[in-house]
């Protein structure tokens, strides 16, 4: 606050001394419009109105007429090499022949967008960190080099961090005219991004699955094969009150979207090359000091903690947790959910 006061006082002091006349439409009354001045006027009154401005501008007229440092020929492009039409054409004009609007359009919606990789600055190419001297870099246009995404499925990319070519973090962002493509929480200079080596970020790792963490530009002009989008209203989320009023609508199916009743929504399918991983939860005594399963007590109705409840098969020695019904918790594979792993 102190700085504001000081700054304001300084600001006003500076301009106070240079003040010639104040113009503030809030306080100023409307002024009568002056009659137009025409050189052909001949009446005495009009002549009087002309005299005053002519006198005021006289010094400027003299100065202009006595200035001779730049002759009129300086403005003649034909006689002066400093001024020619080429100065008004940029470097692209002759090379590409694109019009201005076309260049702008291509700038915002380029046919090739380099948005893949790890880094906002260096992600132009698929292997941005060790690319120059190997077969996988940007400068080697072989099958491993960066290729426009519509050419290959994302499982075809080379993984620079692992021996097997299974891994990629796809970060296409929202590639469109309206943004620069780096709005994903998985790629930014904050705690959520890849470059934050904390619990929130992720590190390069070798996984046995493929992630598509970025939005795939669902209305875009490219990368249709990677589309993994569900067009659906957003129904989840938080609330801003703890006093919910009862809704009188009883037609809404909260189970939405669903496979059985998707209402015509376009639902992306899980990539067939993706390996669905079912975590194998352990039930043995490991090094951690967790609460042991309590098989003797009868849990309360609201106790839904797995290890306080007797398993349905009554087999406490099961080395892995009871799998969901039909021994499969990966679903039909059509939900678009992608499961993977990363090292701790």
């Amino acid at each position, binding site marked *: 606050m102190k700085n504001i006061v000081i700054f304001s006082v300084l600001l006003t002091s500076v301009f106070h001394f240079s003040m010639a006349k104040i113009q503030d439409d809030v306080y100023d009354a409307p002024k009568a419009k002056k009659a137009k001045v025409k050189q052909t006027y001949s009446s005495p009154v009009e002549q009087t109105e002309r005299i005053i401005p002519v006198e005021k501008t006289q010094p400027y007229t003299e100065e202009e007429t006595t200035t001779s440092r730049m002759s009129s020929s300086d403005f003649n492009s034909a006689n002066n090499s400093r001024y020619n039409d080429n100065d008004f054409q940029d470097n692209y004009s002759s090379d590409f022949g694109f019009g201005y609007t076309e260049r702008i359009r291509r700038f915002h919606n380029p046919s090739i967008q380099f948005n893949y990789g790890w880094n906002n600055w260096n992600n132009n190419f698929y292997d941005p960190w060790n690319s120059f001297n190997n077969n996988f870099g940007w400068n080697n246009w072989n099958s491993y080099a960066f290729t426009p995404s519509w050419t290959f499925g994302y499982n075809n990319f080379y993984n620079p961090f692992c021996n097997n070519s299974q891994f990629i973090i796809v970060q296409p962002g929202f590639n469109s005219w309206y943004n620069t493509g780096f709005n994903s*929480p998985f790629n930014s200079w904050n705690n959520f991004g890849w470059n934050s080596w904390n619990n929130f970020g992720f590190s390069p790792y070798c996984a046995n699955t493929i992630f598509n963490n970025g939005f795939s530009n669902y209305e875009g002009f490219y990368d249709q094969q990677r589309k993994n989008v569900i067009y659906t209203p957003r129904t989840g989320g938080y609330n801003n009150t703890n006093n919910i009023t009862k809704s009188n609508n009883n037609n*809404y199916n909260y189970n939405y979207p669903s496979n059985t009743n998707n209402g015509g929504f376009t639902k992306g399918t899980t990539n067939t090359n993706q390996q669905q991983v079912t975590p194998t939860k352990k039930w043995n005594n490991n090094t951690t000091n967790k609460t042991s399963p309590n098989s003797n007590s009868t849990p309360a109705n609201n106790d*839904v903690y797995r290890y306080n409840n007797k398993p349905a098969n009554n087999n406490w020695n099961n080395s892995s947790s009871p799998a969901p019904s039909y021994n499969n918790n990966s*679903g039909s594979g059509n939900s678009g959910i992608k499961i993977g792993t990363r090292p701790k």
Partner: protein
Amino acid sequence: MRKQVFTFSILSILVSFSYAQTDVDALRYSTPAVQGTARNVALGNTMGTIGADISALSTNPAGIAKFSSTEFILSPAISINKSSSSYLNNTTKDSKVKFQLTNLGVIVASRYANSGKNWNGLKFGFALNRLANFNDQYYFGGYNSKNSLLNSYYEKLNDREFITDSASAADNYPFDASIAYQLGLITIDSFGNTFTATNNGNMQQDFQITKSGGINELALGFGSTYKEKIMIGASIGVPIVNYTERIRLTETDIRDSAFDLNSFLNSTYLKTRGVGFNLKLGIIGMPISNLRLSLAFQTPGILFMKDEFLTQMEVDYASQSFIFTGDSPEGASKYRYVQPWKLTTGAGYIHKYGLVSVEYELSDASNSKFRLSQNDANAKAYENFVNNLIKEKYGLFHTIKAGVEFKYDPIRIRGGIQYRTSPFKNAAAPSNINTSSLTFSAGFGYRGKHFFADIAYVQTNFKELYVPYQLSTEAWKPVPAATLSTKKPAIVVSVGYKL
């Protein structure tokens, strides 16, 4: 009987889970407050009644009729969003600094009045005015012994009307519960019993919420003065919405309550973009030369919105050497949002040593509506559901504004205040929290023959309630709610030039 049970189940779900995020969105976009120039900010956003300020294009366009010459203006600002969050008896603070542009525009007006004519020339204006600043950052946490996010997922997946087999459990909630299911956080045995990996809560919950964006409005308007008694004007506003939200909830078993679960993360991401239009009509009467009486009406606006959202989960089991990750598909939704109308009236008095201005603004957040682009029965049902929820939660809200300016040429000294009542209806208002907002401001200005500059300090204080999830099982209630107290101080500087 089965149908009744089904209907009851639906109702139960609606009552317990009716926290569709979009009704929160509706409130966010229904309560904008024009910021505009530093002069307007310092005067409590009352320059719409006085006129001769380009901010009037977004409040009362009749005010531009007061301009007597062409004017350019630019208003950069820096805002420091300070937050204090209270959750489970823990209070934490966070802040976020943001540079913005609150105003940019030009007024085209003739230099002199048309003496002897009824209409005093037509004045045009084009401006970009900041209507809302969504930049906030919150961090809070605490030990929750009663419940967990997994309890809410449990309730979803334990409903056998909808979840009848493992495939439906794995697929039907691709943005939340099904991810937890596929990661083993929720399990269902062969008898249909559902379990959680958390031990009935007893988890340390840490939240991090980051919001960014705002609403900017492109306003194009015109105005004129009739016999120096009445100023009238109209403008077309093109609001541009830009909102991004990231919410991370990490639950950690810090007391070794769970057998195998160390921690899990639930991270949601939302990006909303929208553009729309509205119409504003205004009139300012001058029964005597120094008195201003204003009336302005903003029609309901239509915003064409697009949401993109996803969820990511991570699980750390003690027995595993890997972190298991689960990513939802990308959700996308297009819809129209109807912004509520707004009525503003005010009075001002101009003296040779300054001015005073007051305004009253009335709007109705319950008039917000969503129109989904999908036409299937489910979408329509959901649309009705959300719109009804908006009507039940929100209502009329009032804003009272006042500003005063002292004039000692070429200096101006200003102050202002704004008070907005809660947009919640009483029955739906958050308990023990006042959701009204208070804004106070002060500033200085300099006026020269051509150049002018203003600086304003403004601070808005408000509180919100954040309920991360909801539960219907009484034994697990209550879900702890975070009280988010926000102070948004900002410094706005305007520089302009009059021809």
